[in-house]
């Protein structure tokens, strides 16, 4: 290959790469400008539908200044009006005595001309609509404009009723009003209200997910509290010094578990809490319990969901040691795998029937169904599994390898970086 041809080739590859990357960032605006649908009426319909579809994403974010600003432009184009204003109910302030019968409005946006003269009065004009929930037409007298060149002569106000409550007003201004226009404004207001209802739905869905997340947050198990305290009690007379140390360990572990409900912690902190936990369990089981830890120091600062490993260890001990009188080994391994950390908790206990495990995991941690009835096995597992999937996506669930009598190995992968995930 001669030198110039290499130059051209590399240059071309480079340009293609950057052009490709930049091309995807361009808005799809250009693509939307295509024509060629049948009759002019069809054209008009499609144009209206397109304008509606442009306005709807911003409204789906709820009625805020930002969303109103983006949507008003499209609404004005849709209605062919001179100006469009959106007024929202002003959130009731506790320290001010507000008149209960009159609901105060707040102008979110004024899109179009005449903003300097008319926008100040918009909130005031909307007040009867906010209070009464009925549309209203403003006559030229009500608008009281002295400028003869001003094209804002009449206003049509329609309420935005979301779930039976008036949450805002759509105000449309123009040179004249007609029955058809008033009706159009009413229809658009209903459509906007529909979008806002969907927005409400979105946010309540998000709240539900958050509530589910809080319910899922692993908690210190009551069995463990009971067992630890009885173990410590048994040492109080025979070995008071040890009992004191164990109590301090218990306090440390409890403080970690009860601390402010934060969602993420570092692997190092999680390992420290497992250390406390194992100290207490060893006091109970004595020399039967052995464990080894193998941690790549690179992955210690990785953010992991709060109490995501401790339940796995607890699960191992509670179910792996069931009925077994022999020694019991637990091995915790954390490895560095490029952009991820892989963590596994392995024991040589009694193991579990994979079918039963599948049942527990698919029953989920929240449903108080058969999973809980079967001796509580795997509640910790299901909980951790669910939380991992919620935070990182379905491909980051737990992997469990087990068979009756063959021990259990639970592995999980944690990405080193995920937007919005920080150890607190």
């Amino acid at each position, binding site marked *: *290959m001669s*030198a*110039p041809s*290499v*130059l051209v080739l*590399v*240059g071309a590859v*480079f340009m293609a*790469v*950057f052009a490709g*990357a*930049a091309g*995807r*960032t361009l808005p799809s605006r250009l693509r939307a400008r295509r024509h060629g649908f049948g009759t002019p009426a069809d054209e008009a319909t499609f144009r209206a539908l397109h304008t509606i579809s442009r306005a709807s994403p911003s409204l789906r974010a709820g009625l805020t200044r930002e969303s109103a600003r983006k949507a008003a432009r499209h609404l004005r184009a849709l209605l062919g009006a001179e100006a469009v204003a959106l007024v929202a109910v002003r959130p009731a302030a506790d320290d001010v005595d507000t008149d209960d019968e009159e609901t105060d409005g707040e102008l979110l946006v004024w899109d179009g001309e005449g903003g300097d003269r008319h926008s100040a009065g918009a909130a005031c004009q909307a007040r009867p609509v906010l209070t009464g929930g009925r549309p209203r037409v403003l006559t030229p007298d009500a608008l009281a404009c002295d400028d003869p060149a001003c094209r804002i002569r009449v206003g049509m106000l329609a309420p935005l009723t979301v779930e039976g409550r008036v949450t805002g007003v759509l105000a449309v201004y123009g040179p004249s009003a007609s029955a058809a226009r008033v009706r159009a404004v009413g229809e658009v207001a209903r459509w906007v209200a529909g979008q806002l209802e969907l927005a409400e739905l979105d946010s309540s869905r998000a709240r539900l997910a958050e509530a589910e997340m809080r319910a899922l947050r692993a908690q210190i198990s009551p069995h463990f509290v009971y067992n630890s305290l009885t173990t410590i009690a048994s040492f109080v007379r025979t070995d008071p010094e040890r009992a004191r140390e164990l109590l301090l360990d218990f306090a440390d572990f409890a403080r970690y578990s009860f601390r402010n409900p*934060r969602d993420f912690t*570092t*692997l*190092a902190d999680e*390992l*420290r809490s*497992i*250390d406390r936990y*194992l*100290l207490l369990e*060893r006091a109970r089981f004595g020399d039967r319990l*052995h*464990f*080894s*830890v*193998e*941690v*790549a*120091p*690179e992955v*210690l*600062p990785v*953010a992991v969901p709060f109490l995501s490993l401790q339940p796995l260890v607890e699960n191992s001990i509670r179910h792996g040691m069931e009925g077994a009188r022999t020694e019991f080994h637990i091995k915790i*391994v*954390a*490895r*560095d*795998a*490029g*952009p*991820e950390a892989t963590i596994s908790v392995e024991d040589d206990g009694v193991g579990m029937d994979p079918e039963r495990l599948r049942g527990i995991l698919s029953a989920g941690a929240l449903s108080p169904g058969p999973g809980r009835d079967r001796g509580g096995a795997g509640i910790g597992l299901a909980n951790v599994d669910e939380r991992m999937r919620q935070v990182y996506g379905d*491909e980051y669930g737990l992997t469990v390898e087990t068979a009756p009598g063959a021990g259990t190995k639970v592995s999980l992968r944690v*990405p*080193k*970086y995920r*937007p919005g*995930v*920080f*150890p*607190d």
Partner: protein
Amino acid sequence: MIVMAVTAALAALVAVLGLTAVLGSYGRRRTERTTSDFLVASRGVTPLWNASAISSEYISAAAFLGTAGLVLAHGADMLWLPLGAVAGYVLLLALVTAPLRRSGAYTISDFAEWRLGSRAVRRLVSWCVIFIGWFYLLPQFQGAGVTLRVLTRAPVWAGWAVVVAVVLLLVLSGGMRSITAVQAVQFWIKLVAVAVPAVAVLSVWQLDGAADPTTGGPPRFERVTDVRVETGVTVRVAHPTRVRATGTVDGAAHDGADLTLAPGGHTVGEGATLTFPAGARVPHVDHVPARDGTRWSMPDGASLDHGLYAVYSALLGVVLGTVGLPHILMRFYTNTCGRAARRTAAMVPVLLSLFYVFPALYGALGRVYMPELLMTGDTDATILMLPQQLLPDPAGALLTGLVAAGAFAAFISTSCGIVVAIAGTVAQCVGRGSVTVFRLGAVFALVVPLALVSEIGTLGSAVLVTLALTVSACSLCPLLVLGLWWRGLTAAGAGAGLVVGGGLAVAAGVAALFGGPWTGWPAALLEQPALVVAPISFAVMAGVSLATRRSVPRRADRAMARMHLPEEIVIR
């Protein structure tokens, strides 16, 4: 003698790789039984250890071979490059490490996405990472080719093949992914590999009468010297010189006949051997100026076209480029907190300074003992050839072996770091971190520079690394500095700056590598574009961001708080 050196090198290399493997499996701390060991296991990597790992990844073929070669050829001017590297870490320490660590980003692509909330910018950053990596891999391959050729007379592609094969094996088997212990130990191995022969060579030089390379006229052959030219060169002769030539000189074949080289340029064919009498002036390969000792030892840029510009531009490129090196930035994630990251960055300049003393030393002594390298243009071989030239055989061969092993460790550890960075970026961008895509990405990272390395001619490895650093200085460095410290950076601004800055730097680099030969200002601008392009890139980023002020991401304030407040302050 060659056999012995090769054996020593192989033994040392096997020892290095074996140690790597052993550390790889024991690098994870194991504890058994006692719980207090649990706490030991959950303690992070110490700043010194991480600083060693970072230094190790930074010391590439350029630092190991290139610095000595450049000092030999161009004199003290070239000391600005290691100086720039060290200064770059000071800048990194002051501006980048702690806020970047607090941002929680693992790669610089993660950082861009988190800070600006744009997948498109992430994609652009990923391409910058890939281009920087490719430019950075070229000198590693080239260095390996030179090393193997000097040791065994093997063709240069043998060295490339060895590096590609070993790196591919290590990366694909996951053996040397990012284990801090391996890299950290390798730093000290490299330091020993370069320091022990240096001390030996220095003692010989003292016993020999300590000829001062900074005085006297242009270099001369001290004794009758055979010079074998491995790749065809054009040399410039200052005075008529009588030589005995075997092979092609000026297009005519010679067979051991005497011949007088007239002043001016001469082409010497591949494989030709010239025998110079003692005291003859050394002809210089045509891109290296012949200079007396005083001029050689002055760092004033006089040896280069438009010296003042070239020196400042190279310095700026290396300083800013070091700030934006993706595989180095990834390492700071290993630190437990911003403060530890800052402490790590503070130790790196010390470790690097310690290392860089020795290549400069080899370069200076090379001027006294190996002036024929100025004629063959193989200045990268200075470090490798000096021990066997100066020391009697068993010791000389052993020390050569040690140096060669250190050099290979440098190629392999740097290449691994870069390949992992590229493959990780590709995997995250395309395959959501899948292992198959990671492996394909590793192959992709190696194949492109391998295809290009045969085209780049006799450019020294340090020049090539400077190109990689320039791309980073013009694309990722502005993104980092503005993203970390200026609330007003927008996705559009960052994208525009990356396209303009990165594009200009890559274009200049490609033109300098494959377009030449250039002379005068175009040469200076294409070889060292940083002084022009980096400010343009900063200006475009800032300008476009100001123009798109309304789209400053809403997360900007939170992000700034997260990056600049200590970790103890919890931001809600």
